[in-house]
C-alpha cells in the first residue's frame, strides 16, 4: 500500500520519459457516477475527494493497469474518433492533476 504520491511526485507528466507508465495508486478510493468520477487518494489529512468529469470514468478504467500517456491517448482517440495527438495534449494536465493529488503513480 502506498503512503501517498510516489517518490517522483514532483515530476511533470508531460516531461516524463515517453515510456513512463501510469497506474492507479493502490490506496485510492473511487466511485463512478456515470461520466463523473469521485476519487479519494490515500494520505494526508485533507479528506476532500476529487471530482473529475468528462471521460474520467473511462480514463480511470484504463488506468487499472500500467499504461503510458501515448497508449492512453490512442485508446481514447479510437473511442472518441479524434486524433491521438490532440487528446494527448488535453490528457497531460489531467494526469498531472491526478498524480499531484496522489490518485495515480508511476509504475515501477
Amino acid at each position, binding site marked *: 500500500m502506498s503512503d501517498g504520491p510516489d517518490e517522483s511526485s514532483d515530476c511533470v507528466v508531460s516531461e516524463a520519459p515517453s515510456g513512463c507508465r501510469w497506474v492507479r495508486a493502490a490506496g485510492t478510493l473511487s466511485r463512478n457516477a456515470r461520466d463523473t468520477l469521485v476519487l479519494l487518494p*490515500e494520505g494526508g489529512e485533507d479528506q476532500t475527494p476529487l471530482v473529475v468529469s468528462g471521460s474520467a470514468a473511462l480514463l480511470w478504467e484504463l488506468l487499472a493497469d500500467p499504461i503510458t500517456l501515448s497508449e492512453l491517448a490512442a485508446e481514447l482517440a479510437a473511442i472518441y474518433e479524434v486524433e491521438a495527438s490532440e487528446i494527448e495534449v488535453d490528457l497531460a494536465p489531467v494526469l498531472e492533476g491526478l498524480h499531484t493529488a496522489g490518485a495515480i503513480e508511476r509504475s515501477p
Partner: protein
Amino acid sequence: MNLAPALPVTLEVPAATLLARRIAAYGLGGSHAQNAAGSLAGEPLGQGEWSVLLGTARHERMVGLLARTVADAALATTDDQAAEVREAHVAALCGDLVHERELIRLVGVLRGSGLDHRALKGAAVAHLDYPDPALRSFADVDLLVRAEEWDDAIQVLREAGWERQFAQPRPGFERRFVKGMVLRRPDDGGTELDLHRTLALGPFGLTVRLEELWADCEVFRLGGVEVQALPAEERFLHACFHAVLGDRPPRLVPLRDIAQMSLRGNLDLDRVIRHARSWRAEAVLLHAVELTWETLGLDPTAEMATRVRSLSPSSREIRALGAYLSPQRSYVGLCLSAIRVIPRPADKARYVAALAFPKRDFVSPRYRGHASRWRVAVRTLRAGRRLRAQRPSTTPHGR
C-alpha cells in the same frame, strides 16, 4: 402476518412516498416493482413534488438509486432536476469515500492491536451485495467487535482519538449487555463510529449467539486493504434486524438491502433460518421479509418469501417484537423486555442493578439526577401501559 400479494398502493400513502418506494425497488430482478418503476417515465414532477422526492432520497440514502432511474430514463425529469440528482449523487459519493477512508484507518487500528472486527452495514453491503457500490450510500462507519474484547477495543479507540458520548452504567455492563456505542472524533467533521457488540438493542440483541458471528467472514477490498465483513447469511439477518428493530418508521434502504440480498440468489436459506431459530429471531426474519415484500411490491412467489412464510415464531418472540413495533416503544420498555431473555439469575441481577442504580457519571449527562431519571422511566412505562390497554391486541399483527 400474511405476505401482501402485490404493490402496497393505498390511498393513505402520499404520492412522493409511493414513488420513493418504487425507486427503492428499482432494478430488482423479477419484481412487480421493477415494472412499476418502468412506468414512472411520464411527465417530470412539479417542483414541489420533486423537492419532496429528492429530500426523501437524501434522507433515505438512496440518491444512487434515484440517479440510476434518471440515467435509465425510467423517471422523467427536467434538465435542472437531472442536474440536481447528479449533484446530490456526487455529494453522497464523496461522503461514502470519506467514511470508507475512516473505516480503513479503524481496521488498521484494531488489527494493529490484535482485535477481531467485522465491518457491518453500509460499506460492507455496498461492496458485497450491490452490483455497483455507487447505488448504496451510508452515513457512518459500523464495526462489530467481540464482546470479550469490548473494553480493550474502547481503550484502543480512545487512544486513537475517538470519544464515547456516555459512561457505562456499571463496569462490565457494556461487554455483557449493550448493543453497542456511538463514538465520535472531536477533531474531525463529525464522523461517527457505531461500534457494535451485537446486532440489536433489547431482547433480540441478547439472544443473538455472538460466537456464530465470528465463525466465518467474507472479505472485500478497499483501497488495497482487506476488510472483513459478516458472511452473506449473517449480513442478511443483520439487515432484517436493522429494518425491523431499528428506526420507526423503517427506512427504505434496509428494506432494499433485504430485497437485494434475497434476490441475488446466493443466500443459503437453510443457514439463514437455522441462525434465525438459534438466535430466537424467527419473528424478526418473518416480519422483515413481509415488510420488504409489501413495501417494495416484490413477487410473493419468490423462494425467500415462500420459505419464510412457513416459519412459526413462538408467542414469546412475537411478544418481544411487539415491544419494538409499538408506537410507544421506549428505551425503558426494551430494557425491561430484555430481562426476560437474560439466562442466568446472577446476570439478571447485574443487569437490573446497573440500570436501576447506575454510576453518577452515567446519569448526569442525560438527567438532572437519579430522581429525575426514575420519574422519566415511570412516566414512559405508564404511557406505554395506557396505550397497550387501549389497543385490541398486544401483538404486532394480532397473532
